[in-house]
Protein backbone atom coordinates (compact mmCIF):
# COMPACT_ATOMS: atom_id res chain seq x y z
CA UNK A 1 0.00 0.00 0.00
CA UNK A 2 1.20 3.49 -0.75
CA UNK A 3 -0.22 6.80 0.26
CA UNK A 4 1.33 10.14 -0.53
CA UNK A 5 0.00 12.91 1.69
CA UNK A 6 1.38 16.39 1.56
CA UNK A 7 0.61 20.02 1.99
CA UNK A 8 -0.56 21.72 -1.16
CA UNK A 9 1.82 23.93 -3.07
CA UNK A 10 0.89 26.86 -5.21
CA UNK A 11 0.74 25.44 -8.68
CA UNK A 12 2.38 27.32 -11.45
CA UNK A 13 2.64 26.47 -15.06
CA UNK A 14 6.14 25.84 -16.23
CA UNK A 15 6.58 27.22 -19.64
CA UNK A 16 9.54 28.11 -21.77
CA UNK A 17 7.49 29.84 -24.37
CA UNK A 18 6.38 33.44 -24.19
CA UNK A 19 4.34 34.21 -21.16
CA UNK A 20 0.68 34.65 -21.88
CA UNK A 21 0.76 38.09 -20.32
CA UNK A 22 3.04 39.45 -22.97
CA UNK A 23 0.92 38.40 -25.85
CA UNK A 24 -0.65 41.27 -27.72
CA UNK A 25 -3.19 39.15 -29.53
CA UNK A 26 -5.09 38.25 -26.39
CA UNK A 27 -8.21 40.24 -25.61
CA UNK A 28 -10.96 40.28 -23.04
CA UNK A 29 -14.57 41.34 -23.67
CA UNK A 30 -14.76 45.06 -24.21
CA UNK A 31 -11.22 45.40 -25.50
CA UNK A 32 -11.09 47.46 -28.64
CA UNK A 33 -9.41 45.38 -31.32
CA UNK A 34 -9.25 48.07 -33.93
CA UNK A 35 -10.97 51.33 -34.78
CA UNK A 36 -10.08 50.89 -38.41
CA UNK A 37 -13.40 50.48 -40.19
CA UNK A 38 -11.88 48.55 -43.03
CA UNK A 39 -12.22 45.22 -41.26
CA UNK A 40 -15.07 42.75 -41.24
CA UNK A 41 -16.70 41.70 -38.02
CA UNK A 42 -16.30 37.97 -37.26
CA UNK A 43 -17.21 35.62 -34.42
CA UNK A 44 -16.51 36.87 -30.93
CA UNK A 45 -16.62 40.55 -31.81
CA UNK A 46 -19.09 43.37 -32.00
CA UNK A 47 -19.01 46.94 -33.27
CA UNK A 48 -19.39 49.68 -30.72
CA UNK A 49 -19.18 53.27 -31.86
CA UNK A 50 -17.53 52.11 -35.05
CA UNK A 51 -14.82 50.31 -33.13
CA UNK A 52 -14.41 46.60 -33.47
CA UNK A 53 -14.62 45.23 -29.93
CA UNK A 54 -14.10 41.76 -28.50
CA UNK A 55 -17.10 39.98 -26.98
CA UNK A 56 -15.19 36.96 -25.68
CA UNK A 57 -11.85 36.46 -24.00
CA UNK A 58 -9.47 34.93 -26.47
CA UNK A 59 -7.02 35.17 -29.23
CA UNK A 60 -7.49 37.62 -32.09
CA UNK A 61 -7.31 36.00 -35.48
CA UNK A 62 -7.16 37.82 -38.78
CA UNK A 63 -7.99 36.22 -42.03
CA UNK A 64 -7.67 38.78 -44.74
CA UNK A 65 -10.21 41.47 -43.80
CA UNK A 66 -12.10 39.30 -41.33
CA UNK A 67 -11.33 39.60 -37.66
CA UNK A 68 -12.52 36.99 -35.18
CA UNK A 69 -11.72 36.23 -31.59
CA UNK A 70 -11.15 32.58 -30.91
CA UNK A 71 -12.24 31.94 -27.34
CA UNK A 72 -9.63 30.63 -24.95
CA UNK A 73 -11.12 27.51 -23.56
CA UNK A 74 -8.93 27.06 -20.59
CA UNK A 75 -11.29 25.10 -18.39
CA UNK A 76 -9.96 21.60 -17.94
CA UNK A 77 -11.93 18.45 -18.50
CA UNK A 78 -15.66 18.11 -18.88
CA UNK A 79 -17.53 21.14 -17.57
CA UNK A 80 -18.58 24.00 -19.55
CA UNK A 81 -18.50 22.14 -22.77
CA UNK A 82 -16.05 24.04 -24.81
CA UNK A 83 -15.56 22.32 -28.15
CA UNK A 84 -16.73 24.17 -31.22
CA UNK A 85 -16.32 21.62 -33.94
CA UNK A 86 -15.70 22.34 -37.56
CA UNK A 87 -16.29 20.20 -40.59
CA UNK A 88 -13.45 17.73 -40.98
CA UNK A 89 -12.47 17.67 -37.30
CA UNK A 90 -11.58 14.29 -35.88
CA UNK A 91 -13.46 13.61 -32.67
CA UNK A 92 -13.59 10.88 -30.08
CA UNK A 93 -17.00 10.63 -28.48
CA UNK A 94 -19.25 8.52 -26.33
CA UNK A 95 -22.72 7.29 -27.25
CA UNK A 96 -25.22 8.64 -24.74
CA UNK A 97 -28.50 7.62 -26.29
CA UNK A 98 -29.88 5.42 -29.03
CA UNK A 99 -32.75 7.13 -30.80
CA UNK A 100 -34.74 6.52 -33.92
CA UNK A 101 -32.31 6.42 -36.84
CA UNK A 102 -29.60 8.21 -34.88
CA UNK A 103 -27.24 8.04 -31.98
CA UNK A 104 -26.58 10.90 -29.61
CA UNK A 105 -22.88 11.37 -28.98
CA UNK A 106 -21.15 13.25 -26.19
CA UNK A 107 -18.25 15.10 -27.79
CA UNK A 108 -17.40 17.78 -25.25
CA UNK A 109 -19.49 20.26 -27.25
CA UNK A 110 -22.18 22.57 -26.02
CA UNK A 111 -24.83 20.34 -27.56
CA UNK A 112 -24.77 16.59 -27.95
CA UNK A 113 -23.57 15.58 -31.39
CA UNK A 114 -25.51 13.31 -33.67
CA UNK A 115 -24.45 10.23 -35.59
CA UNK A 116 -27.09 9.33 -38.13
CA UNK A 117 -27.70 5.73 -38.97
CA UNK A 118 -27.09 6.74 -42.57
CA UNK A 119 -23.64 8.09 -41.69
CA UNK A 120 -22.15 4.79 -40.59
CA UNK A 121 -20.93 1.80 -42.50
CA UNK A 122 -22.95 -1.16 -41.38
CA UNK A 123 -21.53 -4.67 -41.54
CA UNK A 124 -22.06 -6.25 -44.92
CA UNK A 125 -20.76 -3.63 -47.25
CA UNK A 126 -20.70 0.10 -47.56
CA UNK A 127 -23.41 0.41 -50.10
CA UNK A 128 -25.95 -1.76 -48.39
CA UNK A 129 -29.32 -0.13 -48.10
CA UNK A 130 -30.46 0.56 -44.57
CA UNK A 131 -33.55 -1.44 -43.82
CA UNK A 132 -36.19 -1.04 -41.18
CA UNK A 133 -34.51 -3.90 -39.32
CA UNK A 134 -31.28 -1.93 -39.04
CA UNK A 135 -33.28 0.81 -37.45
CA UNK A 136 -34.62 -1.51 -34.78
CA UNK A 137 -31.32 -3.20 -34.06
CA UNK A 138 -29.17 -0.08 -33.85
CA UNK A 139 -28.30 -0.91 -30.28
CA UNK A 140 -26.48 -4.02 -31.47
CA UNK A 141 -24.01 -1.87 -33.37
CA UNK A 142 -23.49 0.91 -30.88
CA UNK A 143 -25.06 1.21 -27.48
CA UNK A 144 -25.01 3.65 -24.62
CA UNK A 145 -21.49 4.04 -23.24
CA UNK A 146 -19.66 2.91 -26.37
CA UNK A 147 -16.80 5.07 -27.60
CA UNK A 148 -16.32 5.97 -31.22
CA UNK A 149 -13.92 7.91 -33.34
CA UNK A 150 -15.57 9.95 -36.05
CA UNK A 151 -15.27 12.97 -38.27
CA UNK A 152 -17.45 16.05 -38.22
CA UNK A 153 -19.59 15.84 -41.35
CA UNK A 154 -21.58 19.02 -40.93
CA UNK A 155 -22.62 21.55 -38.34
CA UNK A 156 -26.30 22.19 -37.72
CA UNK A 157 -27.58 25.72 -37.45
CA UNK A 158 -27.79 25.46 -33.66
CA UNK A 159 -24.13 24.45 -33.50
CA UNK A 160 -24.71 20.74 -32.93
CA UNK A 161 -22.36 18.49 -34.84
CA UNK A 162 -23.33 15.77 -37.24
CA UNK A 163 -20.70 13.04 -37.34
CA UNK A 164 -19.86 10.26 -39.75
CA UNK A 165 -17.76 7.12 -39.51
CA UNK A 166 -17.74 6.33 -43.23
CA UNK A 167 -14.08 5.48 -43.35
CA UNK A 168 -12.20 2.44 -42.15
CA UNK A 169 -10.19 4.46 -39.66
CA UNK A 170 -13.31 5.59 -37.81
CA UNK A 171 -15.77 3.50 -35.85
CA UNK A 172 -16.21 1.83 -32.51
CA UNK A 173 -13.22 1.89 -30.18
CA UNK A 174 -12.07 -1.21 -28.36
CA UNK A 175 -9.85 -1.60 -25.35
CA UNK A 176 -7.85 1.39 -24.26
CA UNK A 177 -7.93 4.51 -22.16
CA UNK A 178 -9.77 7.75 -22.72
CA UNK A 179 -8.22 10.98 -21.46
CA UNK A 180 -10.48 14.01 -21.43
CA UNK A 181 -8.61 17.28 -21.91
CA UNK A 182 -9.26 20.78 -23.07
CA UNK A 183 -9.78 21.00 -26.85
CA UNK A 184 -7.55 24.06 -26.99
CA UNK A 185 -4.57 21.91 -26.10
CA UNK A 186 -4.91 19.74 -29.18
CA UNK A 187 -2.71 20.91 -32.00
CA UNK A 188 -4.31 20.76 -35.42
CA UNK A 189 -2.38 18.39 -37.61
CA UNK A 190 -2.68 16.56 -40.91
CA UNK A 191 -3.49 13.39 -39.05
CA UNK A 192 -4.72 12.88 -35.57
CA UNK A 193 -4.08 9.14 -35.64
CA UNK A 194 -0.57 8.14 -34.64
CA UNK A 195 1.18 4.86 -34.01
CA UNK A 196 3.78 6.02 -31.53
CA UNK A 197 7.16 4.29 -31.64
CA UNK A 198 6.95 3.61 -27.90
CA UNK A 199 4.49 0.85 -28.63
CA UNK A 200 1.01 2.32 -28.41
CA UNK A 201 -1.32 4.28 -30.61
CA UNK A 202 -3.09 7.53 -30.00
CA UNK A 203 -6.08 9.37 -31.42
CA UNK A 204 -5.90 13.04 -30.57
CA UNK A 205 -9.50 14.09 -31.00
CA UNK A 206 -9.95 17.77 -31.84
CA UNK A 207 -12.57 17.84 -29.14
CA UNK A 208 -10.00 17.19 -26.43
CA UNK A 209 -10.85 13.53 -26.04
CA UNK A 210 -7.69 11.53 -26.49
CA UNK A 211 -7.79 7.80 -27.01
CA UNK A 212 -4.81 5.60 -26.13
CA UNK A 213 -4.81 2.02 -27.28
CA UNK A 214 -2.45 -0.82 -28.03
CA UNK A 215 -1.15 -0.64 -31.59
CA UNK A 216 -3.04 -3.30 -33.51
CA UNK A 217 -0.85 -6.13 -34.80
CA UNK A 218 -2.16 -5.89 -38.31
CA UNK A 219 -4.89 -3.66 -39.60
CA UNK A 220 -7.48 -6.39 -39.40
CA UNK A 221 -10.14 -6.78 -42.01
CA UNK A 222 -13.03 -4.62 -41.03
CA UNK A 223 -16.18 -6.12 -39.67
CA UNK A 224 -17.79 -2.80 -40.33
CA UNK A 225 -15.89 -1.42 -37.36
CA UNK A 226 -18.29 -2.86 -34.83
CA UNK A 227 -16.23 -5.75 -33.59
CA UNK A 228 -13.94 -5.24 -30.64
CA UNK A 229 -11.52 -7.76 -29.24
CA UNK A 230 -11.80 -8.46 -25.54
CA UNK A 231 -8.54 -10.45 -25.33
CA UNK A 232 -6.33 -9.36 -22.42
CA UNK A 233 -3.68 -6.76 -23.29
CA UNK A 234 -0.13 -7.59 -22.28
CA UNK A 235 1.28 -6.03 -19.16
CA UNK A 236 4.03 -4.24 -21.11
CA UNK A 237 1.51 -2.61 -23.43
CA UNK A 238 -0.51 -1.54 -20.42
CA UNK A 239 2.48 0.11 -18.84
CA UNK A 240 3.16 2.09 -21.99
CA UNK A 241 -0.47 3.20 -22.19
CA UNK A 242 -0.62 4.15 -18.52
CA UNK A 243 2.63 6.08 -18.86
CA UNK A 244 1.32 7.91 -21.90
CA UNK A 245 -1.90 8.70 -20.06
CA UNK A 246 -0.07 10.26 -17.14
CA UNK A 247 2.23 12.14 -19.53
CA UNK A 248 -0.80 13.60 -21.30
CA UNK A 249 -2.17 14.79 -17.98
CA UNK A 250 1.19 16.27 -17.02
CA UNK A 251 1.44 18.15 -20.30
CA UNK A 252 -2.13 19.34 -19.99
CA UNK A 253 -1.55 20.55 -16.44
CA UNK A 254 1.23 22.74 -17.72
CA UNK A 255 -0.69 23.77 -20.82
CA UNK A 256 1.66 22.30 -23.37
CA UNK A 257 0.21 21.83 -26.83
CA UNK A 258 -0.43 18.16 -27.59
CA UNK A 259 0.74 16.46 -30.77
CA UNK A 260 2.65 13.31 -31.53
CA UNK A 261 6.10 14.81 -30.91
CA UNK A 262 5.31 16.54 -27.64
CA UNK A 263 3.65 13.43 -26.31
CA UNK A 264 6.54 11.26 -27.37
CA UNK A 265 9.19 13.57 -25.87
CA UNK A 266 7.27 13.69 -22.65
CA UNK A 267 7.06 9.92 -22.64
CA UNK A 268 10.83 9.68 -23.06
CA UNK A 269 11.45 12.25 -20.36
CA UNK A 270 9.31 10.32 -17.92
CA UNK A 271 11.10 7.02 -18.30
CA UNK A 272 13.28 7.48 -15.22
CA UNK A 273 10.18 7.65 -13.04
CA UNK A 274 7.67 5.01 -12.09
CA UNK A 275 4.36 5.37 -13.89
CA UNK A 276 2.37 6.12 -10.76
CA UNK A 277 4.81 8.82 -9.66
CA UNK A 278 4.45 10.89 -12.80
CA UNK A 279 1.42 12.72 -11.45
CA UNK A 280 3.23 14.05 -8.41
CA UNK A 281 3.54 17.81 -8.89
CA UNK A 282 7.34 17.95 -8.75
CA UNK A 283 7.73 15.07 -11.19
CA UNK A 284 5.23 16.62 -13.57
CA UNK A 285 7.16 19.86 -13.46
CA UNK A 286 10.44 18.12 -14.10
CA UNK A 287 9.36 16.06 -17.07
CA UNK A 288 7.41 18.86 -18.68
CA UNK A 289 10.46 21.11 -18.47
CA UNK A 290 12.55 18.38 -20.03
CA UNK A 291 9.99 17.94 -22.75
CA UNK A 292 9.94 21.62 -23.54
CA UNK A 293 13.72 21.71 -23.78
CA UNK A 294 13.61 18.85 -26.22
CA UNK A 295 10.93 20.54 -28.26
CA UNK A 296 12.91 23.78 -28.43
CA UNK A 297 16.04 21.90 -29.46
CA UNK A 298 14.15 20.17 -32.18
CA UNK A 299 12.76 23.41 -33.47
CA UNK A 300 16.32 24.57 -33.52
Amino acid at each position, binding site marked *: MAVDMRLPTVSKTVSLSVSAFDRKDLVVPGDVITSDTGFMRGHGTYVDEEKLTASVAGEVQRVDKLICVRPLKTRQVMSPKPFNGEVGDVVVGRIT*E*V*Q*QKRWKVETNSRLDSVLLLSSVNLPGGELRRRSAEDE*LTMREYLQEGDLISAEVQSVFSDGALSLHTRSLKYGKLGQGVLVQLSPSLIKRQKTHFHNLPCGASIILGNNGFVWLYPTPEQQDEEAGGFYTSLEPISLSDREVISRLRNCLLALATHKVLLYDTSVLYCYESSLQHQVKDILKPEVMEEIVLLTQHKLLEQEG
Partner: protein
Amino acid sequence: MGWLSSLLENMSPMKLCVPGDKLCSVEDCIPGTGVYLRHGYIYSSLAGYVLRKNEGEELPVISVVRETEAQLLPDVGAIVTCKVTSINPRFAKVHILYVGSTPLKDRFRGTIRKEDVRATEKDKVETYKSFRPGDIVLAKVISLGDVQSNYLLTTAENELGVVVAHSEAGAQMVPISWCEMQCPLTHAKEFRKVARVQPEYLDA
Protein backbone atom coordinates in the same frame (compact mmCIF):
# COMPACT_ATOMS: atom_id res chain seq x y z
CA MET B 1 -32.72 -28.73 1.11
CA GLY B 2 -32.91 -32.44 0.46
CA TRP B 3 -35.49 -33.08 3.12
CA LEU B 4 -37.62 -30.24 1.91
CA SER B 5 -37.89 -31.32 -1.68
CA SER B 6 -38.64 -34.89 -0.66
CA LEU B 7 -41.32 -33.61 1.64
CA LEU B 8 -42.86 -31.61 -1.12
CA GLU B 9 -42.79 -34.46 -3.52
CA ASN B 10 -44.81 -36.49 -1.04
CA MET B 11 -47.40 -33.78 -0.79
CA SER B 12 -47.88 -33.06 -4.44
CA PRO B 13 -46.89 -34.84 -7.57
CA MET B 14 -45.54 -31.58 -9.00
CA LYS B 15 -42.27 -30.34 -7.67
CA LEU B 16 -42.29 -26.84 -6.21
CA CYS B 17 -39.37 -24.49 -5.93
CA VAL B 18 -38.36 -21.02 -4.75
CA PRO B 19 -35.96 -18.56 -6.38
CA GLY B 20 -32.38 -19.78 -6.07
CA ASP B 21 -33.16 -23.51 -6.01
CA LYS B 22 -30.77 -25.53 -8.12
CA LEU B 23 -32.91 -27.57 -10.49
CA CYS B 24 -30.51 -29.58 -12.65
CA SER B 25 -27.39 -29.46 -14.75
CA VAL B 26 -27.49 -27.89 -18.23
CA GLU B 27 -26.60 -31.34 -19.53
CA ASP B 28 -29.97 -32.67 -18.41
CA CYS B 29 -32.37 -30.01 -19.57
CA ILE B 30 -32.78 -26.97 -21.80
CA PRO B 31 -33.58 -23.84 -19.79
CA GLY B 32 -37.10 -22.51 -20.41
CA THR B 33 -38.84 -19.68 -18.62
CA GLY B 34 -38.56 -18.78 -14.95
CA VAL B 35 -35.03 -20.16 -14.72
CA TYR B 36 -31.48 -18.89 -15.10
CA LEU B 37 -28.07 -20.38 -15.73
CA ARG B 38 -25.15 -20.20 -13.38
CA HIS B 39 -21.91 -22.15 -13.49
CA GLY B 40 -23.40 -24.89 -15.66
CA TYR B 41 -26.53 -25.43 -13.62
CA ILE B 42 -30.11 -24.35 -14.06
CA TYR B 43 -31.60 -22.46 -11.13
CA SER B 44 -35.13 -21.32 -10.49
CA SER B 45 -35.82 -17.59 -10.61
CA LEU B 46 -39.45 -17.90 -9.53
CA ALA B 47 -41.47 -19.48 -6.78
CA GLY B 48 -43.64 -21.96 -8.59
CA TYR B 49 -44.02 -25.40 -10.11
CA VAL B 50 -41.18 -27.10 -11.94
CA LEU B 51 -42.31 -28.22 -15.36
CA ARG B 52 -40.40 -30.49 -17.72
CA LYS B 53 -41.67 -30.66 -21.25
CA ASN B 54 -40.44 -32.65 -24.20
CA GLU B 55 -40.66 -30.50 -27.26
CA GLY B 56 -39.14 -32.83 -29.77
CA GLU B 57 -35.61 -31.85 -28.85
CA GLU B 58 -33.14 -34.30 -27.39
CA LEU B 59 -33.45 -32.83 -23.93
CA PRO B 60 -36.62 -31.76 -22.14
CA VAL B 61 -37.23 -28.04 -21.55
CA ILE B 62 -37.33 -27.14 -17.87
CA SER B 63 -39.39 -24.17 -16.73
CA VAL B 64 -40.81 -22.79 -13.53
CA VAL B 65 -44.39 -21.61 -13.81
CA ARG B 66 -46.85 -19.81 -11.60
CA GLU B 67 -50.61 -19.56 -11.71
CA THR B 68 -50.47 -16.77 -14.27
CA GLU B 69 -47.67 -15.32 -16.22
CA ALA B 70 -48.09 -12.30 -14.04
CA GLN B 71 -44.87 -10.56 -14.97
CA LEU B 72 -45.17 -10.66 -18.71
CA LEU B 73 -43.92 -7.48 -20.30
CA PRO B 74 -44.66 -6.55 -23.90
CA ASP B 75 -41.72 -7.88 -25.88
CA VAL B 76 -40.68 -7.51 -29.49
CA GLY B 77 -42.88 -9.73 -31.66
CA ALA B 78 -45.68 -10.09 -29.11
CA ILE B 79 -49.28 -9.60 -30.19
CA VAL B 80 -50.94 -7.11 -27.88
CA THR B 81 -54.48 -5.89 -27.38
CA CYS B 82 -54.69 -2.20 -26.75
CA LYS B 83 -57.07 0.70 -26.41
CA VAL B 84 -56.53 3.89 -28.38
CA THR B 85 -56.19 6.91 -26.11
CA SER B 86 -55.32 9.74 -28.49
CA ILE B 87 -54.56 10.44 -32.12
CA ASN B 88 -52.60 13.01 -34.01
CA PRO B 89 -51.62 13.17 -37.68
CA ARG B 90 -48.32 11.35 -37.05
CA PHE B 91 -49.28 8.56 -34.67
CA ALA B 92 -51.89 7.03 -32.39
CA LYS B 93 -51.22 6.57 -28.70
CA VAL B 94 -52.56 3.45 -27.04
CA HIS B 95 -52.68 1.70 -23.71
CA ILE B 96 -51.60 -1.92 -23.87
CA LEU B 97 -54.15 -4.07 -22.03
CA TYR B 98 -53.10 -7.60 -22.93
CA VAL B 99 -49.98 -9.40 -24.02
CA GLY B 100 -51.22 -12.46 -25.89
CA SER B 101 -54.06 -13.64 -23.72
CA THR B 102 -52.61 -12.39 -20.43
CA PRO B 103 -54.05 -9.20 -19.00
CA LEU B 104 -51.53 -6.66 -17.72
CA LYS B 105 -52.06 -5.40 -14.22
CA ASP B 106 -50.34 -2.13 -14.97
CA ARG B 107 -50.90 -0.03 -18.04
CA PHE B 108 -48.10 0.28 -20.55
CA ARG B 109 -48.23 2.91 -23.22
CA GLY B 110 -47.57 2.27 -26.87
CA THR B 111 -47.39 4.23 -30.08
CA ILE B 112 -48.57 3.25 -33.56
CA ARG B 113 -46.76 5.48 -35.99
CA LYS B 114 -48.43 6.49 -39.21
CA GLU B 115 -46.00 4.43 -41.27
CA ASP B 116 -46.76 1.32 -39.23
CA VAL B 117 -50.53 1.37 -39.68
CA ARG B 118 -50.61 -0.75 -42.80
CA ALA B 119 -48.23 -2.58 -45.06
CA THR B 120 -49.02 -0.96 -48.37
CA GLU B 121 -49.39 2.61 -49.57
CA LYS B 122 -47.82 3.79 -46.34
CA ASP B 123 -47.64 7.37 -47.51
CA LYS B 124 -51.38 7.58 -48.02
CA VAL B 125 -52.23 6.56 -44.46
CA GLU B 126 -54.28 9.00 -42.45
CA THR B 127 -54.35 8.19 -38.78
CA TYR B 128 -57.81 9.70 -38.34
CA LYS B 129 -59.16 7.27 -40.91
CA SER B 130 -57.49 4.35 -39.19
CA PHE B 131 -58.26 4.69 -35.48
CA ARG B 132 -60.41 6.65 -33.07
CA PRO B 133 -59.93 7.06 -29.33
CA GLY B 134 -61.62 4.22 -27.49
CA ASP B 135 -61.08 1.65 -30.25
CA ILE B 136 -59.76 -1.74 -29.26
CA VAL B 137 -56.87 -2.62 -31.52
CA LEU B 138 -54.76 -5.69 -32.07
CA ALA B 139 -51.13 -4.83 -32.75
CA LYS B 140 -47.69 -6.32 -32.73
CA VAL B 141 -44.69 -4.94 -30.81
CA ILE B 142 -41.86 -4.00 -33.18
CA SER B 143 -39.53 -2.27 -30.77
CA LEU B 144 -39.26 -1.27 -27.15
CA GLY B 145 -38.81 2.27 -28.45
CA ASP B 146 -36.24 4.60 -26.95
CA VAL B 147 -36.10 6.73 -23.87
CA GLN B 148 -38.26 9.40 -25.46
CA SER B 149 -40.91 7.19 -26.96
CA ASN B 150 -43.08 4.31 -25.85
CA TYR B 151 -43.35 0.79 -27.18
CA LEU B 152 -43.62 0.94 -30.94
CA LEU B 153 -46.47 -1.12 -32.35
CA THR B 154 -47.57 -2.02 -35.84
CA THR B 155 -50.90 -3.01 -37.38
CA ALA B 156 -49.41 -3.63 -40.82
CA GLU B 157 -50.79 -7.15 -41.19
CA ASN B 158 -54.19 -8.39 -42.28
CA GLU B 159 -55.04 -9.84 -38.91
CA LEU B 160 -54.05 -6.68 -37.03
CA GLY B 161 -56.04 -3.52 -36.58
CA VAL B 162 -59.31 -2.42 -35.02
CA VAL B 163 -61.40 -5.23 -33.58
CA VAL B 164 -63.93 -3.29 -31.54
CA ALA B 165 -65.10 0.22 -32.30
CA HIS B 166 -68.12 2.28 -31.37
CA SER B 167 -69.92 4.56 -33.78
CA GLU B 168 -70.82 8.14 -33.05
CA ALA B 169 -74.27 6.89 -32.07
CA GLY B 170 -72.57 4.74 -29.43
CA ALA B 171 -73.26 1.34 -30.94
CA GLN B 172 -70.63 -1.28 -31.57
CA MET B 173 -69.89 -1.27 -35.27
CA VAL B 174 -69.70 -4.15 -37.69
CA PRO B 175 -66.76 -4.44 -40.07
CA ILE B 176 -67.76 -4.33 -43.71
CA SER B 177 -64.36 -4.18 -45.40
CA TRP B 178 -60.69 -3.93 -44.48
CA CYS B 179 -61.04 -0.19 -44.17
CA GLU B 180 -64.63 0.46 -43.17
CA MET B 181 -67.04 -0.31 -40.35
CA GLN B 182 -70.73 0.32 -40.16
CA CYS B 183 -73.01 1.40 -37.33
CA PRO B 184 -75.93 -1.06 -36.92
CA LEU B 185 -78.23 1.74 -35.75
CA THR B 186 -77.66 4.58 -38.18
CA HIS B 187 -75.95 2.54 -40.93
CA ALA B 188 -73.38 5.28 -41.10
CA LYS B 189 -69.98 4.09 -42.31
CA GLU B 190 -66.76 5.04 -40.64
CA PHE B 191 -63.18 4.50 -41.74
CA ARG B 192 -60.94 2.18 -39.73
CA LYS B 193 -57.91 -0.04 -40.27
CA VAL B 194 -59.96 -3.15 -39.63
CA ALA B 195 -58.44 -6.43 -38.50
CA ARG B 196 -59.31 -9.34 -40.74
CA VAL B 197 -62.42 -10.96 -39.37
CA GLN B 198 -61.89 -14.42 -38.00
CA PRO B 199 -64.48 -16.91 -39.19
CA GLU B 200 -64.37 -18.79 -35.87
CA TYR B 201 -65.15 -15.60 -34.10
CA LEU B 202 -68.14 -14.84 -36.32
CA ASP B 203 -69.65 -18.25 -35.70
CA ALA B 204 -69.44 -17.91 -31.97
